[in-house]
């Protein structure tokens, strides 16, 4: 089997695995929402299947992984069938000319992502390296992660992305980094499908497709083979699902959002920070139900986050930011706060986009701003976490900012762009709710 076919088969398998999981969570999911969440759940679930096999000391083989995934598939299918279908069904989405633009963006990204074998430094020093080492070991190689010579590979980073690469390698029959840009395309497409479905719930097809097209270049990560693409997809989908849940009070959206955030926490440490930011946002934003009840609805996220946290504690995997005394470094840098912040502003990625977003927030009516308070707050908290990490970094601060700040800001860009876009569109009174069109409220 050639590499590209194996990779496409693996991605298709993950979608198929994710369909019953999506339906077990949301019996009404159809169209873009079903397709998008299916790949997200499929890739997330597969990483947990491989993690579980590794913890059970069962060497990864394609047959063993397939059988384990089939067990998940069957269990989810039974749950989905048992779920009452109900009477309400969402109407099919109406395509517009802007959807063609989104497809063109994804096609262009797929061509870029498959130009050659992956070339990003972080791919072969972190994400691809771990995947390749684990594949050789037939499971997670704790000796490699614990070795003091391998701290450069950030052993504490969660493993959803390397484990996805390993699944593809198993389908391929061996390691090849030639087509590993394709899962990044699939994660981006999944996020855009979710965005399209969520936007259609609250605005016209034209604006829903336009906001999806606007988000398309933000959903595609230029850091191919790294965890950015998966984090943007899971984190973006999670924040937007929780935003919709806070608006509609829909328990299905709460479950979707919490699970997506849990998987985001399994992509990168920034995903863990995002879950904390969302928890604060959920506690503060909204009025009904009570804050504690809202936070309880995030339990699937905490449940998904816990295994890796326990494993990295058990294996004492070091975190570079936490090495030495982060607090003393943070305090020592406080007197240079204005210089550091100026440096961050100077090296902001896509500064004109951020300026447009900021302007949009300022000129929108106060009521619209309040209605998007959750996403704005989560974005602000997450950015504060990033800035705090720079103040506490044990590395050279300028080097750390230059090598990570664009990536970090790109992670938070999709949800805030979505929120500000819809806030402005609704302020023009051109958006129309589709609640009357049969969507659940």
């Amino acid at each position, binding site marked *: 089997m050639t590499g590209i076919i194996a990779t496409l088969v693996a991605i298709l398998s993950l979608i198929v695995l994710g369909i019953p999981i999506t339906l077990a969570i949301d019996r009404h999911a159809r169209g873009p929402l079903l397709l998008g969440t299916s790949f997200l759940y499929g890739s997330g679930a597969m990483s947990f299947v491989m993690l579980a096999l590794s913890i059970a000391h069962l060497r990864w083989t394609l047959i063993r992984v397939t059988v384990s995934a089939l067990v998940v598939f069957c269990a989810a299918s039974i749950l989905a069938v048992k779920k009452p279908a109900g009477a309400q069904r969402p109407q099919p989405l109406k395509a517009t000319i802007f959807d063609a633009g989104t497809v063109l963006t994804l096609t*262009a990204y797929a061509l870029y992502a498959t130009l*050659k074998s992956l070339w990003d430094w972080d791919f072969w020093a972190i994400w691809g390296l771990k995947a390749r*080492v684990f594949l050789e070991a037939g499971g997670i190689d704790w000796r490699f992660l614990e070795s003091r010579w391998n701290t450069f590979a950030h052993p504490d980073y969660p493993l959803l992305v390397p484990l996805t690469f390993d699944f593809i390698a198993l389908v391929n029959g061996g390691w090849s980094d030639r087509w590993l840009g394709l899962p990044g395309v699939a994660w981006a497409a999944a996020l855009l499908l979710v965005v399209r479905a969520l936007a259609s719930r609250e605005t016209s097809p034209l604006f829903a497709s336009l906001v999806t097209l606007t988000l398309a270049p933000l959903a595609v990560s230029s850091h191919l083979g790294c965890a950015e693409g998966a984090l943007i997809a899971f984190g973006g989908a999670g924040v937007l699902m929780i935003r919709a849940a806070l608006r509609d009070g829909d328990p299905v959206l709460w479950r979707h959002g919490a699970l997506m955030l849990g998987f985001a926490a399994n992509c990168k440490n920034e995903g863990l920070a995002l879950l904390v930011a969302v928890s604060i946002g959920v506690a503060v934003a909204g009025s009904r139900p009570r804050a504690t009840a809202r936070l309880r609805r995030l339990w699937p996220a905490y449940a998904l986050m816990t295994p890796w946290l326990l494993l990295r504690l058990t294996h004492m995997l070091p975190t570079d930011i936490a090495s030495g005394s982060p607090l003393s470094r943070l305090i020592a840098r406080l007197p240079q706060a204005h210089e550091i912040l100026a440096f961050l502003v100077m090296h902001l990625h896509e500064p004109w986009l951020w300026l447009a977003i900021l302007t949009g927030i300022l000129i929108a009516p106060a009521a619209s701003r309040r209605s998007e308070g959750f996403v704005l707050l989560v974005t602000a908290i997450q950015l504060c976490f990033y800035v705090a990490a720079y103040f506490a970094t044990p590395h050279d601060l300028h080097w750390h900012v230059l090598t990570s700040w664009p990536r970090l800001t790109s992670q938070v860009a999709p949800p805030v762009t979505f929120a500000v876009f819809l806030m402005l569109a609704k302020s023009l009174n051109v958006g129309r709710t589709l609640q009357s069109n049969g969507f659940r409220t």
Partner: protein
Amino acid sequence: MTLRRALIVIALAAIVAMCIDPRLLLMPFVDRAPYARALEGYPDRQWPLYPRFLEGVHAHTRPGDTIALIVPAMRWDNGYLYAYYRACYFLAGREVLPLVDPQNNKLQQNFRNARYVAVFGVTLRTPADVVWKGEGGRLLRLRR
């Protein structure tokens, strides 16, 4: 149209315009071969033979083997970092032992503990058997 509505329209248009990436959108309509050629050797542009040398080392060693690494740049930030990280990727399953740490301290114990020494781009004078030679380097088994 009120001033606020006009500003909102401008802000919306600005957000859409700022998000569009013309270079990406042109990708299906341009000759991608030059891009592919540029990216092909991008990670190893300083030492083009190095990946093939590491593949040779991989082929002549077994999982679990310990391999120390000697390259022309033996200072961490001056090339050893790249050489070591790259070796870890290509020699997955083997244990690559660095001979220099990030502070440029020499790690003699790693040289002593290694079963093999992969020497790329330089000559090493030490009692050792040549296991494999090619692609600008040699794989040596140290005599104990």
